[in-house]
């Protein structure tokens, strides 16, 4: 059951973004920024966690889930460290995603060569 929920919620988010891609002149880079910011805002309002409770990976795997993680990290750090937490929480919470992408990306640049699109 949770697989089905993950599938259709995740799929729906993507399908809606597809409309955005085609109906506006927004480039993919801008869309990614928009999604992460939207996730952080929805997270701060407590809405995104409810979506994750319902759809699991269907909500956490899309990029708004990343924004949600960033905000939750800041929130947690604020509770622990007060004002300083504003500057600490984001990277702490997003570290697994950001570091793994950078590390694997770097390793890929050593292993793989650029290829012709075909």
């Amino acid at each position, binding site marked *: 059951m949770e697989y089905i929920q993950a599938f259709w919620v995740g799929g729906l988010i993507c399908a809606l973004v597809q409309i955005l891609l085609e109906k506006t002149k927004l480039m993919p880079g801008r869309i990614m920024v928009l999604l992460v910011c939207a996730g952080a805002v929805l997270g701060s309002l407590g809405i995104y966690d409810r979506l994750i409770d319902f759809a699991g990976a269907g909500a956490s795997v899309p990029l708004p889930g990343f*924004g949600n993680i960033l905000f939750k990290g*800041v929130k947690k750090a604020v509770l622990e460290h007060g004002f300083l937490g504003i500057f600490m929480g984001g990277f702490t919470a997003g570290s697994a995603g950001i570091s793994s992408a950078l590390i694997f990306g770097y390793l890929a640049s050593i292993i793989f060569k650029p290829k012709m699109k075909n």
Partner: protein
Amino acid sequence: MEQSRKEQEKIKKYEDYVKRKTPVHSLAKNMWWAFLSGGLICTLGQGILNFCRGLGLDKETAGSWTSVSLILLSVLLTGLNVYPKLARRGGAGTLVPITGFANSVAAPAIEYQKEGQVFGIGCKIFTIAGPVILYGILISSFLGLIYYFLHMWGLA
């Protein structure tokens, strides 16, 4: 003033005309492919998540393992030239999941290796992902600032 308004109207007229003349992908079809590919990636994520939970990991650790695994998979598929092929069909379905983020990191890293470690890979690895990280941190810190005050005043 009058001149520039006329100019604007002319541009608008040509834009509209070009829009009519330009064929576009069928939106319904592309939405379907986005739905399918995005849904499948999320389902795969759910599978990894459940597996990690099954090993007795807590929710957050399992979530991190899921992200790391999907990112690794996406980077491999990027290096093997498979991810761009999937994306040609999948569109937003391959862009929106965390795998799309990983693809945007790995693709420039691979492409710009010829331009050196620092100014090639080092700088260009952030060309697409950099803005995502910057604005993600900016907005979450800003929201955190609001939260800080709300919390201080006992409102949150």
